[in-house]
């Protein structure tokens, strides 16, 4: 095997085992799983209360578990037409309505918390090794690029495992607490959303690793990571709100360079939109990471 690829793979494996040994991975998995369980429980409770109010209003018996009324409504032709009208595209609306409510909620939830947890866990990964000096034991054994890419890949694999685990936690919670729970449909939809959230998270992971390569202090790196992430969110929000020219065009162009600008495309069920968004998000993650590497490749260690 090519030495650069071999070392990248060696660093990736070490990143995984190191995270397990340092209990960092356990903290990460607990955070993701706990988050999914708590949020799903809240979702089920809110849904149940809404259904009960609806059932009371129409004068039918109140169900003991959540999900029954929603499932019935989900299948109602008038309701589906209403959603089609709201979405503006019948095909897209139909695809969305094929998705179980719990999976839709999990998708929204994972898209919301993945960037936050990625920044919290990964923005200090490289800077803490520079800070402690442990990087100096490696930089005469491998190239800086293969080390950085190996760390990035290791973090990406951890993120995938964490998201799949949180999906599993949400699925188990829904299975225990919801009526008319379709295990197969929910599992498939949750798995798809886990993968989509992973792709979305990889762009933020690139940002976190890019920041981590440029800043020596782990705490400062984490803080800067969050600040940049918030700035990116502001760009996406402004791109949505501002309608005055030429600002709208400028913001739309800028929005293409931040992960938030591709989130909706990734959400959409059709392969074309999701595929383009995937390519963009993976490219953005690599670009952020490599932008940090330009600095890292020249810095004193």
């Amino acid at each position, binding site marked *: 095997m090519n030495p650069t690829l071999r070392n990248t793979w*060696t660093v990736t494996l070490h990143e995984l085992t190191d995270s397990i040994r340092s209990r960092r991975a356990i903290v990460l998995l607990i955070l993701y799983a706990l988050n999914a369980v708590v949020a799903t429980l809240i979702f089920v409770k809110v849904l149940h209360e809404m259904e009960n109010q609806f059932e009371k209003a129409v004068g039918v018996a109140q169900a003991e578990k959540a999900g029954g009324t929603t499932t019935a409504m989900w299948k109602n032709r008038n309701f589906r037409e209403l959603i089609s009208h709201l979405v503006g595209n019948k095909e897209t609306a139909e695809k969305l309505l094929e998705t179980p409510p719990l999976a839709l909620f999990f998708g929204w939830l994972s898209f919301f918390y993945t960037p936050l947890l990625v920044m919290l866990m990964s923005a200090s990964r490289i800077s803490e*090794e520079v800070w*402690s*000096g442990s990087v100096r034991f490696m930089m*005469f054994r491998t190239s800086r690029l293969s080390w950085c890419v190996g760390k990035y890949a290791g973090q990406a694999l951890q993120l995938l495992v964490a998201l799949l685990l949180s999906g599993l936690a949400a699925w188990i919670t829904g299975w225990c607490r919801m009526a008319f729970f379709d295990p197969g449909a929910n599992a498939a939809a949750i798995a798809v959303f886990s993968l989509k959230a992973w792709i979305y998270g990889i762009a933020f992971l690139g940002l976190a690793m890019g920041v981590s390569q440029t800043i020596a202090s782990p705490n400062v790196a984490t803080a800067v990571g969050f600040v940049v992430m918030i700035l990116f969110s502001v760009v996406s929000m402004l791109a949505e709100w501002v309608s005055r020219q030429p600002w709208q065009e400028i913001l739309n162009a800028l929005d293409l360079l931040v992960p938030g600008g591709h989130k909706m495309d990734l959400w959409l069920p059709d392969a074309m939109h999701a595929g383009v968004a995937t390519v963009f998000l993976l490219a953005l993650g690599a670009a952020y990471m490599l932008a940090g590497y330009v600095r890292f490749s020249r810095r004193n260690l």
Partner: protein
Amino acid sequence: MSAALELKGVVKTYGSRRALDGLDLAVPRGTIFGLVGSNGAGKTTALAVTVGLLRRDAGSVSLFGEGPFDPLRHAGRVTLLPQDSRLPLHARAEDLLWFYGRLQGLGEGALRESIDEVLEWVHLNDRRRSPVRTLSHGMMRRLTIAQAFLGRPELVLLDEPMSGLDPREAARIRAILKRRHDAQTVVISSHNLHELETLCDGAAFIEAGRLVRQDSMDTLTRRSRRVTFFLEPAGQPLPMEELTKALPDATWEQALDGAELTVKFFDETARAAEVNARVLEVLLRHGIGVLEIRRGSALESEYFSATDSHASSVTPLPPAGSATP
């Protein structure tokens, strides 16, 4: 034969401070070589520049005559024991060495053998499964020494390797270094000049980022040109006529108190052992006691005399109790 390491006019600045100011250095292959200098002289910077941890601003570095450090070409052939760097605390000693060895490109069999060997050297075989955080400071230091010798690299750079080691372990590491593999070149940066004197084949004095002097240890300490006899009782008349007759081409120096007699000679005159035998024979015959014999002068005194001009620029401390202006 090309040098294992050659630095030519290397400059490294930190802001406005010049850590290396045109440093020249050539370390012959297969030698143990000492770097001597005061704090901030540039020793650590020189080692870090050699393996590319620090970027040089000017000058050239060449390893084995092949140009500057390149991880693809030199990974596994050049290793470093960095001075103040911490190993990852949660990693196990053996796993860490395994990871480093794999990065060096060692195969499983060779790596297993090498890990066993270096852990045995540093007396950590019984702690190989221990996380680094559970090791004492000295043990961690030994582990950092072990990683530097993993896979039998051609050039090993050690920055203050003995600091933090207890006397027994330091002696053990010194013995290991002396028994090093012939093809290996070891560069040691240390403030312990006695240690360097006993270990090294050559040394360089570095001050203010420049080379002050570099030579073989024999030449630096004049081992092959000088023997000093410490005498007892001090001050008694010496049989100089007989001594001169025994070594006609040598010159003699007697300390003012008469306690030391130094004989300076050239390689052509005699070898040190021969000088020893001839002088001792005369002295003992005249009932003059010899307490100690030292070959050459101490590296420390040579270092002080070579770097006096640099040291004199340091402001001396005021006497105790004196008022601060």
